[in-house]
C-alpha cells in the first residue's frame, strides 16, 4: 500500500502540489477566483473516489489524514488492497458503514489559479433533495457516467435537477474507463448519447472527459492510455471553465438588516443580488415603491463609489423613507412590479408532501411571507422529462405550481436573478424546510387555464372559505354525492322527480353557504373572546 502511494506522489506534477512561497507572499493567493462545483452520478459511479483523488493530488490531504485513511481502507474499504479514496470524503459513520454518501459534503482544494469548493452529493434517488442542495450554489456540475453502463435513468435525473437549479456548464466524466480497456468507441458512444439527452436541457457548455478515478487517468494529468482523447484533463477543465453569474444586469438589493447604530446613521445592509450600483444613482424601494438616491456605499473595507453583484454592502439614502428587512431596493430605471401570484417549479424535500390547499411560510430573498399552494399543474417525470397530472408532490418529487401570497412580494424569474427567484417553502407549524422553488419566467401569470374545471371550481370556492382548503376536488365530490343521496331519499318519499331534484340542488347550494355563515359568526365570536383576554393580560402586566 505504501509503495503505491509513493508512486502516485512522485507522478504528481510539482506545479500543482507545491506553490511557490514567493508567489504566496506577494499575494498571488489573494487574487485567485472561486469555482463552486458539484459531483453527481449514480450509485457506485465513483463520485467520492474522484473527489478523493482530486483532493489527494492537489495536496489537500495531509499525511495524518492518509494514515487514518489507510486504517479505514482496511476496515471499511471496497477496493481490496488499494486505498479507498471515497473514505476521504464519506464523513458520517452511517455512510462509512453502508459505503454510500447520504448527505452533501463540502470539500476544499486549490491550485495556483483557482480555489474550489466541491459539493459531493448522493446518487440515490431518495437523496435527490440533497443533490439539489449541492447544485443550488454550483457554477459547474461534474456528471459521472460509468463507462461500462453508459447513460442511465439516474444520469437523466441528475442532469434535469442540475439544469433546473441553474447550472449551465457541465463536465461529463466517463469514469472507470480502465474497465473498458480505454476504448475510444465506448467514450464516443456515451458522448453522443449524452448530447442527445442534453438537447432537452438548458446547458450552455458540455465537456466530456474519459477518466479513471481509481488510477488517476485524465484527472490531473493527461493519461498516456487515452492518446485518442487529446483534450484537457479534468482539473485543467475546472481551472479554465467560465464561472459567470447567472443573473441579468438589473440592480437588485434585498434589504437584509437595517443598520441604525445612532440617530445620525441609517443604513440598509445586504448582499447585491444582481447588477451594480453607484453613489448618486436613483433607486426605488419595493414593494412600497418610494424612491430616493444613494448617498453612500459602505463596503467591507470602507466607502465605495460603485458596488457590484455578490458584494455585501450597506447603503445610505438621501431621503428618510420607510424600508425594512425583506424589502428590495432596485434601480429606478428598472422597477419590478410586486405580485401576489408566483408560478414556480417546486421540489419536495420532506416526508410531508407538497399539496394544493396547504399554507406555507415562503422565503424569497430576505422576505418571509405566507402563501398558499393554490394549484399543482403537473409533476415532472425526471427520467423522461414528461409532465404528468398529480394531486401532490411526494418527497423528491418535482412539479410546477402556483403560489398565492397573502401580501405583495418582490420576486423575479430565477433566470433573471437567482436570489430573488429562489424560494424556500417552510412548514408554518414544524418549521421544517419542506421544499424549494424556482420561479418560472412567466412570473405573475395566473392559474394555468388548461387544468380541469373541477379543480378550478374547488380552488375558487376554497379561496372564499366555502370549501375547506385541503379538500378541493374531493370535498366537491362529497357535496355532489350527498346531494344526490338527498335527491334519492326525497324521490322515494315524495315520488315527485321535480321536487326531489329541487331539494337536491338546494342541498348542494345551501350547505356550503351555511358553512360560510357559521364559520364567520364563530370566528367573530372567538375574536371578541381573544380581545377580551388580551385586555385582561395587558392590565395584568402581560405576564412578563
Amino acid at each position, binding site marked *: 500500500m505504501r509503495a503505491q502511494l509513493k508512486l502516485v506522489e512522485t507522478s504528481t506534477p510539482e506545479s500543482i502540489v507545491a506553490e511557490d512561497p514567493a508567489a504566496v507572499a506577494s499575494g498571488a493567493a489573494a487574487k485567485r477566483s472561486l469555482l463552486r462545483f458539484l459531483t453527481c452520478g449514480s450509485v457506485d459511479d465513483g463520485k467520492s473516489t474522484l473527489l478523493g483523488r482530486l483532493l489527494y493530488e492537489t495536496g489537500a490531504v495531509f499525511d495524518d489524514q492518509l494514515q487514518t485513511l489507510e486504517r479505514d481502507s482496511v476496515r471499511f474499504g471496497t477496493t481490496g488492497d488499494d486505498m479507498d479514496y471515497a473514505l476521504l470524503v464519506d464523513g458520517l459513520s452511517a455512510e462509512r458503514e453502508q459505503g454510500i454518501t447520504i448527505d452533501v459534503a463540502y470539500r476544499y482544494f486549490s491550485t495556483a489559479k483557482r480555489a474550489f469548493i466541491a459539493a459531493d452529493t448522493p446518487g440515490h434517488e431518495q437523496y435527490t433533495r440533497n443533490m439539489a442542495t449541492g447544485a443550488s450554489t454550483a457554477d459547474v456540475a461534474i456528471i459521472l457516467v460509468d463507462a461500462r453502463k453508459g447513460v442511465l435513468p439516474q444520469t437523466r435525473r441528475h442532469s434535469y435537477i442540475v439544469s433546473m437549479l441553474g447550472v449551465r456548464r457541465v463536465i461529463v466524466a466517463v469514469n472507470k474507463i480502465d474497465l473498458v480497456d480505454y476504448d475510444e468507441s465506448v467514450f464516443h458512444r456515451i458522448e453522443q448519447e449524452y448530447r442527445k439527452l442534453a438537447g432537452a436541457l438548458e446547458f450552455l457548455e458540455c465537456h466530456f472527459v474519459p477518466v479513471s478515478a481509481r488510477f488517476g487517468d485524465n484527472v490531473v494529468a493527461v493519461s498516456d492510455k487515452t492518446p485518442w482523447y487529446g483534450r484537457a484533463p479534468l482539473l485543467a477543465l475546472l481551472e479554465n471553465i467560465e*464561472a459567470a453569474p447567472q443573473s441579468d444586469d438589473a440592480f437588485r438589493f434585498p434589504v437584509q438588516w437595517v443598520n441604525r*447604530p445612532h440617530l445620525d446613521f441609517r443604513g440598509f445592509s445586504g448582499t447585491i443580488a444582481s447588477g451594480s450600483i453607484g453613489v448618486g444613482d436613483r433607486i426605488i424601494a419595493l414593494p412600497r415603491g418610494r424612491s430616493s438616491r444613494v448617498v453612500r456605499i459602505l463596503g467591507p473595507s470602507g466607502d465605495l463609489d460603485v458596488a457590484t453583484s*455578490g458584494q455585501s454592502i450597506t447603503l445610505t439614502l438621501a431621503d428618510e423613507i420607510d424600508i425594512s428587512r425583506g424589502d428590495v431596493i432596485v434601480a429606478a430605471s428598472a422597477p419590478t412590479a410586486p405580485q401576489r401570484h408566483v408560478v414556480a417549479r417546486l421540489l419536495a*424535500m420532506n416526508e410531508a408532501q407538497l399539496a394544493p390547499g396547504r399554507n406555507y411560510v415562503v422565503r424569497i430573498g430576505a422576505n418571509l411571507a405566507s402563501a398558499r399552494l393554490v394549484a399543482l399543474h403537473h409533476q415532472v417525470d425526471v427520467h423522461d422529462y414528461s409532465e404528468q397530472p398529480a394531486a401532490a408532490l411526494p418527497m423528491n418529487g418535482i412539479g410546477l405550481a402556483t403560489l398565492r401570497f397573502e401580501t405583495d412580494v418582490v420576486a423575479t424569474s430565477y433566470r433573471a436573478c437567482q436570489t430573488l427567484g429562489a424560494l424556500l417553502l417552510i412548514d408554518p407549524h414544524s418549521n421544517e424546510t419542506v421544499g424549494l422553488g424556482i420561479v418560472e419566467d412567466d412570473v405573475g401569470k395566473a392559474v394555468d387555464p388548461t387544468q380541469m374545471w373541477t379543480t378550478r371550481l374547488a380552488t375558487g370556492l376554497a379561496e372564499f372559505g366555502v370549501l375547506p382548503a385541503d379538500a378541493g376536488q374531493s370535498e366537491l365530490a362529497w357535496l355532489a354525492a350527498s346531494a344526490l343521496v338527498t335527491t334519492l331519499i326525497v324521490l322515494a318519499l315524495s315520488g315527485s322527480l321535480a321536487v326531489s331534484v329541487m331539494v337536491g340542488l338546494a342541498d348542494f347550494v345551501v350547505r356550503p353557504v351555511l358553512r360560510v355563515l357559521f364559520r364567520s359568526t364563530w370566528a367573530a365570536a372567538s375574536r371578541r373572546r381573544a380581545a377580551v383576554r388580551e385586555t385582561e393580560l395587558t392590565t395584568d402586566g402581560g405576564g412578563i
Partner: protein
Amino acid sequence: MGRLTHLQALEAESIFVLREVAATCEKPVLLYSIGKDSAVLLHLAMKAFAPGKPPFPLLHVDTGWKFREMIAFRDLTAKRLGLDLIVHVNEEGVKAGVNPITSGSAVHTDVMKTQGLKQALDKYGFDAAFGGARRDEEKSRAKERIFSLRTPDHRWDPKAQRPEPWRTFNTRKRKGESFRVFPLSNWTEADVWDYIALENIPVVPLYFAKRRPVVERNGALIMRDDDRLPLLPGETPQMRMVRFRTLGCFPLTGAVESTAATLPEIIAEMRASRSSERQGRVIDHDGSSSMELKKQEGYF
C-alpha cells in the same frame, strides 16, 4: 460572484451570514475561542455592522487551562474593540477537580468545554451562537450546515439536518431551540492565514515561532506554560524553537518545531506542510468518528 476574488467572495458570504443572525435571532452571542479562526470571525463581525458595533457580546468558555498569552490577548482584544466579553467557567467542574492531566482529555473536554458551553448558553438565554468552525477541519464537519439547529438540550442530529440550498436560510426555530452558526464554513486553513495577512489582523503570538519551554510526551511537544504541568520522572523542559498551529488547553496542545516567525513564513510553511492542523489536538484521535460523537453531545 464571478468578478470577486475567492477571498472577497468568502468575506461577502460570511458577512451575509453574520447579518442574517443579527436580523433573525433574538439574542445571539459570538463564541470567542481566541484562536486564529475567532480572530477572523471577529474581524468580519466588526465589518458586517460598521459603522456600528456588532449587536452581540463575546463569550469565552474558559477551562482554566488556556495559555496565559491567550487570556492576555483575549482581554486586550475585547478592550481594543470596545466589546462586551463574558467569561464562563464551569464551576462545578472546577469544584470536582476536573483537569486535563489527571481526568484525561476526554473528561476534561466534556466537562469544561461541552458542559461549560451549555451552562453558559442556558444561563444567558442565547438563541444563536456563532462559532469559527470550518468544514475543512474534520470530516463530520464537512456535512454540517451553516445554520445548525440544536434541540433545547443542545443536541445535534446529523440525520435530521434541514436542507440548506443557496444562501436562503430557514432561520425559524421553536422556543428553546437554538442555532449554532458557522460563518467561516467555507474557509480553509490557508484562506484564514491569507486573509489574516491581507487584512493585518492581530493574532495570539503563540502562532509565531519562538524559543519556548517544552517537554516531549507521546510524540507531542507540550509547552510547560505554568508549573501545574507535572514533570514525569526524567523529564526536563527544553527551550526549543516552536510554534502552534491550533490553540487550546496547553497540556492538550502539541507545538510544532518551526522557525516561522512572520506571517509570510507561516503561510509558506503551511503550504509545504504534510500534516493537518488538528494533528496537534489530543482530543481528536480517539477514532475517526470521535468528533461526530462529541458534536452530537453538544461539543462545538
